[in-house]
C-alpha cells in the first residue's frame, strides 16, 4: 500500500504535522505539559533523593551504641568477658580496661577468645589476634576495633561503640 500525500497526518489547519512542529497555536499546551512534567519530576526526585527520601527512615529501632555495663569490680582481675548481645569483649588486665569489638576485621565474622592460648581466633578464616586486639596471623588486615570506655559519675563503666579509639588506649581505674 502506497502512502499518498492525502494519507499524511494533516491535523492542523495549516496542513502541518503537530508532532514535529511547534506552532504558536500549541505554545500554551506545551508550556502546560512542560510545567506538569517538571513538577512531577521534581517531586519524584525529592521523594527518592538520598539521605532525606522515603527510603531513609529518621527513627531507628536498634540498640543504642552507648550502654552501661556495670561497676569495674564485676569483671575478674585478669579476664576477657564477652557481652554477646552488645558484640563487645571487655578485657581487664589488673586496673586496665579495654572494650574490643567481636567483629573480625577480615570479613565480619564474630571472633572467639581462647582462654588456653590467650588469643582471639576467628572461626571463619583463621585470623588470630593477641589479647590486646592486635592481629598477628591469618587474613585480618588490621587490629580489632577499640571502643571508647569510660567511668560515669556513679562509678560504672560505659562503652560507646560509636566512638573508636586507638589500639593503645586503655582505661585505668
Amino acid at each position, binding site marked *: 500500500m502506497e502512502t499518498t500525500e492525502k494519507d*499524511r*497526518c494533516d491535523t492542523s489547519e495549516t496542513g502541518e504535522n503537530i508532532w514535529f512542529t511547534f506552532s504558536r497555536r500549541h505554545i500554551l499546551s506545551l508550556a502546560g505539559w512542560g510545567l506538569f512534567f517538571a513538577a512531577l519530576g521534581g517531586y519524584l526526585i525529592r521523594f527518592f533523593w538520598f539521605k*532525606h527520601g*522515603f527510603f*531513609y*527512615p529518621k527513627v531507628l529501632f536498634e540498640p543504642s551504641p552507648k550502654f552501661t555495663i556495670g561497676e569495674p569490680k564485676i569483671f575478674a582481675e585478669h579476664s576477657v568477658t564477652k557481652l554477646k548481645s552488645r558484640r563487645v569483649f571487655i578485657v581487664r588486665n589488673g586496673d586496665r580496661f579495654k572494650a574490643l569489638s567481636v567483629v573480625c576485621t577480615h570479613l565480619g565474622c564474630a571472633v572467639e577468645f581462647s582462654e588456653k592460648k590467650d588469643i582471639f581466633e576467628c572461626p571463619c578464616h583463621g585470623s588470630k589476634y593477641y589479647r590486646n586486639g592486635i592481629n598477628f596471623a591469618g587474613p585480618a588486615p588490621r587490629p580489632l576495633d577499640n571502643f571508647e570506655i569510660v567511668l560515669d559519675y556513679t562509678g560504672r563503666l560505659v562503652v560507646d561503640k560509636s566512638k573508636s579509639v586507638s589500639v593503645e588506649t586503655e582505661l585505668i581505674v
Partner: protein
Amino acid sequence: MKDPNLKDKIKETVEDIWGSVFRHGYKDTPRNRILQIISNVWLHLHPARVREHGTKLRFTWCMGGITFFVFLVEVVTGILLMFYYTPDVNKAFADTMDLMYTVPFGRLMRNVHRWGAHAMVITVSIHMFRVFLTGSYKPPRRFNWVIGVFLLLLTFLLSFTGYLLPWDQLGYWAITVGMNMGRATPLFGHEGPFSQFLGMTANNDIRFSLVGGTTIAAPALLRAYVWHCIAIPVIATALMIVHFWRIRKDGGISGRL
C-alpha cells in the same frame, strides 16, 4: 581515531540500537498509526482505531479509565507502604504510626493510598452507573458487564481487607462486624439458613476460613494482608486485562454498534 567514516559508523550503531528497540520509524500514515498500537505490548489490548464519538467525554465520563489510573496509584503507594509495614499484631499499629510521624513522605503515602481507595470505590460505581445509563451492558457486551461486576466486588474486598491492616480500633471492630455478617451466609455460615445440612459450626464455617480462627486475631491480620497485597490485586489485574481486551473484541468503546 582519524577514521573518516567514524561519524557514519557511530550513527549506524545508534540507529541499530534504536531500531532494535523501536521496530518502526514514525512515518505518520494510517498503517503506522495502527502498527503503533498493535506492536506495543502495553497498548495492544486496546483497539487500534477509536470512533470519534468514543473520545467524547460527555458520553463515557472516562470513569473506567480514571478507575484504572487510581488503581495504578494504589499499587505504587501500596508497594511503598509495604516497605515500612509488618503484618504482626505487635507491630502493625506502631508501624502505621511510624509511617504517620517519622518516615519521610510516609503520611503522604498513607493518605494518598487511603483517599485513593475511597476514590476508586466512587469512580467504579459511577462507571457502572454510566454503563447502565447508556445501555452499554447489552449484547455483545454482556460478558464484559459480568467481569465488571466481579471487578466491583474485588474493589470492595480490597477496601475491606485494607481496613484491618492498621490494627486500630476502627478497623478491628469494622472487620469484627463484617465477619460476623459472614456467619449468616446461606449454607456456609454457621448461623445462616440451611447450614445445618452441611454441619457448620463456629470453627468450620466460611468465616472461620477467612479469619483463620474464631476471633479476629493474629491469623486474621496476616490473612487480610496477603489477600489485600497479593491475592486480590493479582486476580483483579487478570480480570482487568480481560475487561480491557473485551472492549476491543466487543466492538470498541461505548456507542452504538
